[in-house]
């Protein structure tokens, strides 16, 4: 919709201005920074951006499932690490051949993610424990659990100080998709399918309607016959299952094992991206690409321009804030427009009636 675009443009413009002010205040070369930030990335960088966006996208989808139901799943971070570790171990053991092994590992990851998130769902539904608190706690537990299990399951490579799970057999890797001279994760396809499924389930199924209705007004949901507790558990588990996919592009497309330097913090980035994308699958995709794009600029900014990479984090934060604010402004404006339209329709009718009366 036109208003949506206006909101995004407004937000980016504001973010541009605010970031420039921050740079000025820090005494950094504003021009050089923007020249670098706005330089069209090379093909290799685009491949990185798409790959990063892929994981961010899945993470944000997982968060968005909860958001749509007014559940704040902070725990995507823990869920994806537990799940990615599980997938790496399962696929590494290779009980099944080839892609069966891959599929089985993916299912295991989703199941583990769902169960991990489901704990918070059960606590919320049965005891009314805020999912914010419980998922934060579960994140901690996930960290230590995975650290412990990793030490147990790790195979140590000679001469390396890293530890990682057993490498997945090559036949179970998910091949990359050629992208010019480079490759992007094959998992990108799965991520896109997840986005389509997200949209379809939310907008075209009764379950999705129930979920959105519960998110908008749990009281109205109860009155309409929705079992809110079951929806809470269901939404948490779906969120967790999607979170279970977050680390898999890396596991099956790049590292082929889960090690001590496995990327962390994706769950929290996902929250920002979900906010940025307004919980809409296409918006989230754009948000994920934008975040990945900015992440990709972190190294050149430091090495070529000589400014702190924190400027990237600041920019990301500023963008999320401005998007949230501008979306709210535009939403209110839109509502006012609509109400005015209703009023016009109403007034036209009144006038017509008044004319009838006077005639």
């Amino acid at each position, binding site marked *: 919709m036109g208003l949506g675009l206006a909101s995004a443009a407004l937000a980016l413009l504001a973010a541009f201005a605010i970031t420039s002010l921050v740079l000025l*205040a*820090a*005494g*950094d070369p504003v021009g050089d920074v923007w020249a670098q930030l706005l330089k069209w990335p090379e093909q*290799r*960088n685009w491949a*990185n951006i798409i*790959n*990063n966006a892929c*994981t961010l996208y899945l993470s944000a989808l997982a968060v968005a499932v909860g958001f749509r139901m007014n559940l704040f799943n902070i725990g995507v971070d823990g869920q994806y*690490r537990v799940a990615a570790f599980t997938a790496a171990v399962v696929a590494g053991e290779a009980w099944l051949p080839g892609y069966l092994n891959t599929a089985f590992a993916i299912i295991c990851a989703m199941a583990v993610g769902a169960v991990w998130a489901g704990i918070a769902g059960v606590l919320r539904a049965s005891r009314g424990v805020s999912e914010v608190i419980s998922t934060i706690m579960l994140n901690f537990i996930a*960290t*230590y659990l995975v*650290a*412990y299990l*990793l*030490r147990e399951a790790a195979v*140590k*490579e*000679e*001469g*390396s*100080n*890293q*530890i990682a799970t057993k490498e997945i057999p090559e036949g179970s890797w998910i091949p990359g998709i050629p992208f010019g001279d480079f490759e992007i994760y094959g998992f990108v396809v799965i991520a896109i399918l997840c986005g389509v499924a997200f949209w379809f389930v939310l907008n075209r199924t009764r379950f999705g309607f129930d979920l959105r209705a519960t998110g908008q007004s749990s009281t109205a949901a109860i009155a309409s016959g929705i079992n809110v507790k079951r929806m809470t558990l269901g939404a948490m588990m779906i969120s967790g299952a999607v979170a279970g996919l977050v680390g898999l592009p*890396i596991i099956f497309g*790049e*590292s082929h094992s889960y090690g*001590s*330097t*496995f*990327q*962390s*913090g994706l769950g929290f980035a996902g929250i920002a991206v979900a906010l940025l994308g307004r919980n809409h699958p296409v918006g989230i995709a754009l948000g994920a690409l934008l975040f990945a794009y900015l*992440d*990709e600029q*972190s*190294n*050149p900014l*430091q*090495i*070529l321009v*000589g*400014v*702190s*990479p*924190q400027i990237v984090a600041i920019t990301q934060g500023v963008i999320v804030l401005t998007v949230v604010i501008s979306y709210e402004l535009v939403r209110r404006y839109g509502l006012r427009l609509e109400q005015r339209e209703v009023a016009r329709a109403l007034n036209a009718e009144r006038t017509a009636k008044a004319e009838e009366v006077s005639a």
Partner: protein
Amino acid sequence: MRRTTKFAAVLAAGILALTACGSDDSNEPESGGDDTSSAAPTSDIKVGMAYDVGGRGDQSFNDSAAAGLDQAKEEGLVSDETQESEAEDGEAESAREERLRTFADAGYDPIIAVGFAYASSVGKVSEEYPDVHFAIIDDQSLADSANVASLVFAEEQGSFLVGAAAALKSKTGHIGFVGGVEVPLIGKFQAGYEAGAKAVNPDIKIDVTYLTQPPDFSGFGDPAKGKTAAQGMFDGGADVVYHAAGGSGGGVFEAASEAGEGNWAIGVDSDQYNTADPSVKDVILTSMLKNVNVAVYNYLKEVSSGTFPTGVNTYDLSVDGVGYSTSGGFVDDITDQLDDYKQQIIDGKITVPTEPAK
């Protein structure tokens, strides 16, 4: 802002050093192909320095590497156009790779990767850029690469000596170890420390604790956590605590200081008697020296002489890559015994384990 001012300061220091060197002809760099007409001793070796999380200013591991680079710059072994970049916590593998590639594309050679987290990135990027030279610290999984030098340390040997010192100084027969993050690298510190202490006193009691678990690497930069952990040990009767916890060590020193007379802490990586807060330096018995600066400097010196080292370069007791510090004079009475252990290790009479006993 912090970064830019610091960068400016380094630059200024570099320029000063340059002019200073200019009058010192004896220190002419040996590197060939120097066709600049500048009076100052210059080098066209542009070093790319990729730090681990924390970067320059972490008062620990990264700073030690930076000191080696600074020394090489001061002496004109390398160009002042070196550039530095640091990792972010929990970043993607591709971010580490891109950091190395960005250096390589911008003409930096050699590129030094500080920390074992770079192992697979260096492995991958060194293949993509066969003409660029890489060095990696704390990792030797790339020993066979033609353009990678692995700079590793025998942390367990240095830790053995401070472990022995701890046992010799302990009156309670009870000592402690605080590890930053439970990774195999820190396990080497623990293993050596325990072996050294037990060599002195087989019945010694050793408390061991790690502050965080990967991927939470905050244990290397959280003094509050370090203090709590060490306090627990001192309260439990330990009177010497060794930390291998980077920036968290400051808290360990504080805990030792508050525990009162007769309680000691042992520093790590650099001589922390000289770098720690003055109010706590009197409790720093000794420090296990892991001379990353020496390794970086030696590497750059060799590079400036025209040869790029490859393979594994181990910095152990025999080359003073690790050791113990004597600043403060608290271990003066036992240096004979410690040096005796040192000699036995160098001679191979004692083999120090690299993994803690389970």
